[in-house]
């Protein structure tokens, strides 16, 4: 059964009229505090619970434990078939070495693919951290290599990209955005009605979707996408 995302978050079907195709690579971008990790975690976890497939969530920014604590505080439950790989042990034990993080990431994917033949979803939190720990010289080439790997393995992938508020527009020109099949932008907007979080989908190939910003709300029941912000 193919993972369904439209119903993974309450109200997301306001934005997505059709499903994200299997094997799509989606960049999820936004400034700090815009719920990037939570949105991706919720998307992947809910889709897996409904599909019975397996998924892999790689976390570089937070430890597995702190990640779970954050998710729990937002009322988000981890699907049993979502496997979380925490890079912290590798980073701590090999801290004096320059690691080939792209190769390591590919090997981790291969391990889980071998272990679970229906591994269908992949999430990386975050691409910035992966870059910052990787060999600098061949970064662009490595990025293409990673994208090719994800496409070859037919993994529907969510790559989190940090984007400082002042650089949202600059970030839209980043190579990852051109290479990706979809971009989900998360942000904070100030208006007469106060400060609101929003979600916007500027790009999603082969998917019917709205372009306008929708309000993103978190409460004790989890994450919700409300109506258009304007």
């Amino acid at each position, binding site marked *: 059964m193919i993972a369904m995302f439209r119903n993974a978050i309450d109200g997301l079907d306001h934005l997505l009229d059709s499903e994200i195709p299997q094997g799509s690579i989606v960049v999820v971008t936004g400034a700090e505090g815009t719920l990037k990790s939570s949105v991706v975690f919720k998307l992947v976890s809910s889709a897996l619970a409904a599909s019975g497939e397996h998924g892999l969530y790689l976390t570089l920014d937070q430890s597995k434990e702190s990640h779970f604590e954050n998710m729990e505080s937002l009322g988000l439950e981890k699907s049993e078939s979502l496997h979380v*790989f*925490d890079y912290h*042990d*590798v980073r*701590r*034990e*090999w*801290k004096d*070495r320059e*690691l*080939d993080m792209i*190769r*390591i*990431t*590919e*090997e*981790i994917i291969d*391990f*889980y693919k071998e*272990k679970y033949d229906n591994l269908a979803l992949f999430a990386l939190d975050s691409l910035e951290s992966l870059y910052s720990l990787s060999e600098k010289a061949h970064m662009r080439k490595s990025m293409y290599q990673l994208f090719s790997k994800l496409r070859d393995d037919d993994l529907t992938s969510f790559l989190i990209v940090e984007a400082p508020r002042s650089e949202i527009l600059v970030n839209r020109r980043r190579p990852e955005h051109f290479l990706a099949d979809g971009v989900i932008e998360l942000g904070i907007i100030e208006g007469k009605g106060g400060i609101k979080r929003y979600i916007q989908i500027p790009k999603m190939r082969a998917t019917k979707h709205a372009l306008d910003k929708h309000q993103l709300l978190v409460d004790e029941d989890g994450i919700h996408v409300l109506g258009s912000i304007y």
Partner: protein
Amino acid sequence: MAKEGSLFIEKDLDGDEHDSDTSCECEYKNYVEKIVRINREVFLLSLLLQRNMCGYELIKKIFLKWDVLLSQGTVYPVLYSFEDEGILRAEFGRGDMRTKIYSLTPEGREVAQKRVEDFIKAVEQMRLLMKK
């Protein structure tokens, strides 16, 4: 690869010896490398049957013992997976919150012993059949 491996030789505090290879051993080394890579789970378990170790030490030990440098991406997922399955327990080293030390659980020790025995038996059987 040799460059990465040389870091272990410099840092070899256990006094393990590491023999340098000659070109005639090339084919032999290729077979050893394949065997270790494909069966790395058994090799990791065999080392953990001897003593508790962290991921870094396990990679180092395999390099020094079999001259095969396993990448972090092929070792740490195995350790995490064993931990999830209750075969291994991970604890931070005493006074060292940087290093997670892996040890076999009582059930894990049984699993490890069985897997290592089966592996050795398979290799022995293979050797006997090839000589027949």
